[in-house]
C-alpha cells in the first residue's frame, strides 16, 4: 500500500466517523430536557412566540428531517443559528476557534518542547534522583485537576506576584491576519503586541499543557529506555559514536517516532481540558463557548463545537500519522 493511498484512506476514514459523531451528538442534543427556544426568548416569552421561533428553526419537524437539513446546511458552511448568541454559529466559530487553536497549539508545542528533553534526561539518568523527581513531577502534572491548577496559577502569578494578567487574551493586535494573536503580531513585527499576547497566553497554555507534558515525558522516557536496550543502540555505541549523537539523534528519533501517535492522541486530552481551563481564564475560545451553549441547551452551538473539536482532533491525528510516515520509513514503505 502506497503512502499516498494510506493518507487518502485515512482522510476518507474520517468521513463516516464525522457522520457518526454528528448523528450521536444530534441525538444527544435532541434528548436534552431543556427547551432552547424558551431559553433564548427569555423568561417572559409567551407560548405563541415560542411556537413561532420553533417553526422558524425547523424544530417542529421530525428529528431525522432536522438532521438532514442540518447536514445540508453544514455542507454550505451553515451551522445554523445560535440561540445563545443570536447569530450564525459559523460566525461564532470563526470568532472563537482561533483563540482555542492558538491556546491548544501553544500548549502542545510547550508540552513537546519541555516533555521531550525531560523525558530523555530521565531516561538517560534512569533510577537517579533526577529521574525520580522528574517522574513525580510529571505524574503530579497528570494528577492535578486542571481547573484547580489554573486557579492556583492565577493566585500565584497574578494575585501574589502580579506578573501576569489574570484573564483573557489581551488586546487584539492592530492587524488581524490569522486571528492568532501571537502569529499576527509576529507577522506584523509588532513586538509589543507579541509580548502582551504572550503574557496573556502564558498561564492558560501552561495550565493546559501540564498534563500532556507529563504524558509526553513519560512516553519518551519509556520508549527511550526501550530504545536504549535495542541492538542498534548497542551497535551505535560499539562503533565509537559520541553519546550525544546516539541519544539525541539516533535514539530520540526512534523514541519520538514510536510515541508520535500517542502524542497525537494526547491532543484530545488537551482539547478536553480546554473546556475547564478556558473557563477559569475567561479565554474567549471554543471550549468556553461550548460550555455556554451546552448549559444553554443551544443545540446548534453544541453540535458545531463537538464537530469542530472532532475534526480538529482527527486532523491533528492525521497530520501526526503523515508525519509519522514521513519520519519512519517502515510506514512509508508499507510494512503494514
Amino acid at each position: 500500500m502506497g503512502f499516498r493511498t494510506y493518507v487518502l484512506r485515512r482522510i476518507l476514514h474520517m468521513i463516516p466517523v464525522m457522520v457518526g459523531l454528528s448523528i450521536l451528538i444530534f441525538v444527544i442534543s435532541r434528548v436534552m430536557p431543556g427547551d432552547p427556544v424558551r431559553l433564548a426568548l427569555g423568561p417572559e416569552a409567551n407560548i405563541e412566540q415560542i411556537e413561532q421561533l420553533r417553526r422558524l428553526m425547523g424544530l417542529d419537524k421530525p428529528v431525522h428531517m432536522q438532521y438532514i437539513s442540518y447536514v445540508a446546511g453544514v455542507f454550505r458552511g451553515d451551522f445554523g443559528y445560535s440561540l445563545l448568541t443570536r447569530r450564525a454559529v459559523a460566525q461564532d466559530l470563526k470568532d472563537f476557534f482561533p483563540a482555542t487553536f492558538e491556546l491548544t497549539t501553544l500548549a502542545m508545542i510547550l508540552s513537546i518542547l519541555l516533555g521531550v528533553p525531560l523525558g530523555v534526561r530521565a531516561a538517560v539518568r534512569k533510577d537517579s534522583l533526577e529521574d525520580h523527581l522528574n517522574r513525580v513531577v510529571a505524574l503530579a502534572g497528570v494528577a492535578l485537576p486542571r481547573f484547580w491548577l489554573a486557579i492556583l496559577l492565577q493566585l500565584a502569578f497574578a494575585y501574589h506576584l502580579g506578573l501576569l494578567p489574570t484573564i483573557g487574551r489581551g488586546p487584539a493586535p492592530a492587524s488581524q491576519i490569522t486571528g492568532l494573536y501571537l502569529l499576527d503580531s509576529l507577522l506584523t513585527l509588532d513586538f509589543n503586541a507579541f509580548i502582551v499576547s504572550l503574557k496573556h497566553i502564558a498561564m492558560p497554555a501552561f495550565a493546559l499543557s501540564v498534563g500532556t507534558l507529563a504524558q509526553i515525558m513519560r512516553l519518551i522516557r519509556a520508549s527511550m529506555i526501550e530504545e536504549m536496550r535495542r541492538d542498534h543502540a548497542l551497535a551505535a555505541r560499539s562503533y565509537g559514536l559520541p553519546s550525544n549523537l546516539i541519544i539525541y539523534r539516533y535514539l530520540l528519533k526512534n523514541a519520538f517516532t514510536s510515541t508520535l501517535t500517542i502524542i497525537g492522541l494526547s491532543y484530545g486530552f488537551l482539547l478536553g481540558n480546554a473546556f475547564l481551563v478556558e473557563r477559569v481564564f475567561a479565554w474567549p475560545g471554543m471550549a468556553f463557548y461550548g460550555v455556554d451553549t451546552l448549559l444553554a441547551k443551544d443545540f446548534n452551538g453544541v453540535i458545531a463545537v463537538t464537530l469542530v473539536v472532532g475534526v480538529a482532533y482527527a486532523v491533528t491525528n492525521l497530520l501526526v500519522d503523515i508525519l509519522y510516515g514521513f519520519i519512519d520509513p517502515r510506514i512509508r514503505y508499507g510494512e503494514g
Partner: protein
Amino acid sequence: MNPTGPLLAIQDLGIHMRTYEGRARVLNGVRLAIHEGETVALVGETGCGKSITAKAILGLLPPNAEIVSGSIAFKGRDLLRLSEEELHGIRGRQIAMIFQDPSTALNPVFTVGEQLTDVVLWQGARSATIGRRVTPEVRQRCLEILRLVRIPDPEGAFGRYPVELSGGMRQRVLIALALVGRPELLIADELGTALDVSVQDQILLELRELVRTGGLSVLYITHNLGVARLVSDRIYVMYGGEIAEMAPAAEIFRRQLHPYSQGLLAAVPRLTGTMGEGIEGRIPDYVNPPPACRFEPRCPFRMEVCRLQRPLLVEAERDRWVACHLHGSREDSGSGEESG
C-alpha cells in the same frame, strides 16, 4: 611463541549480574586469547555467557552487570581499567563488533548512508554537532566500504533505509559499519546465523576473504559448530560461564577432551546419518551454580572430586587446554600461556 604476546588476552574474567532471583554468577574465571591475524571461535549453547564476554571486551555490558575479577588486556592495556572516554576511542577503531541480528542492529529510521556517514564523521569524537557535513570525500569513503563488502549498487544502497534491504544486504551493511574504523580486532556475534543457509554461506566466505586480505584478527561467537569449524583457527568451548576446552579447530572436531564438548559434538546431526542422544539436564542455574565443576550434574563421568574442587583450565596436551578433572596438566600448569 609470540614474543609480543597476544593481541587480546582475557584473564580470569568474572562477571555477576543482579537479577530478580539474586546475583547471577554469569562469567566465572574466563580465560581467552587472540593473537594477531588469528581467527578464534567462541562456541557454546544459549546462555553460556559468550555474548556477555564479547560485550565485556567493548565495555558494553548492561547496567546490572558487575565485573568482579580479571582483566581484558588489549595490546597490553587493560580495557577494564579504562575510562569510558578511553574506551570510546578504542570502540570501532581498534575493536569492532558485528552484531548478530541484521534486522534489529540497524537503526530503522536512518538510511544506510546516514548511518555510515555518521560513523565516518564522528567515530571517536566526544560529541557531535547538529548538522551532517557530507563532503565528497566522506561519501567516497562510505561507498568504498560498501563496495568492499560487495554490496551491489552501493550508490543506491547509500540512500536506502534498512527496511528496503534484504537480510543479506543488511548483514553486509553491518559488516561495513564495523569495518569503517579499520579495526584490528573484529568481534562477530553469531554472524549469519539469522540468515538462510545459502546467504550465510556467501557472507562467511566473503568475510573470510576480508579477514585474510586485511590481516584482521577475529573473535567469532557462535553456537553453530559447523560454522566455527568453517571459519576459525582455534576454538574455545564455553559452558556455564566458564571455558571448558580450547583446541585448534582441526583437532577438536576429531577428538574432544572435555565431556561437555564430547556430548555437544555427539549431539550434532550428521550427514552420515548419525546423531547422538544429546546431553541430559539443563544449563546451570547461575544464581546457585554447582559448587565446583559447573558441568558436574550433567556429566556422565562425574566423580567425587568434581563436586568439591573446581577444575582449572590446564594444558592437557600440546596446544590443547581443558578444564576437567579427567585430564591432568601436561606439565606444570601455568608455565606457558595458551597459544595458537
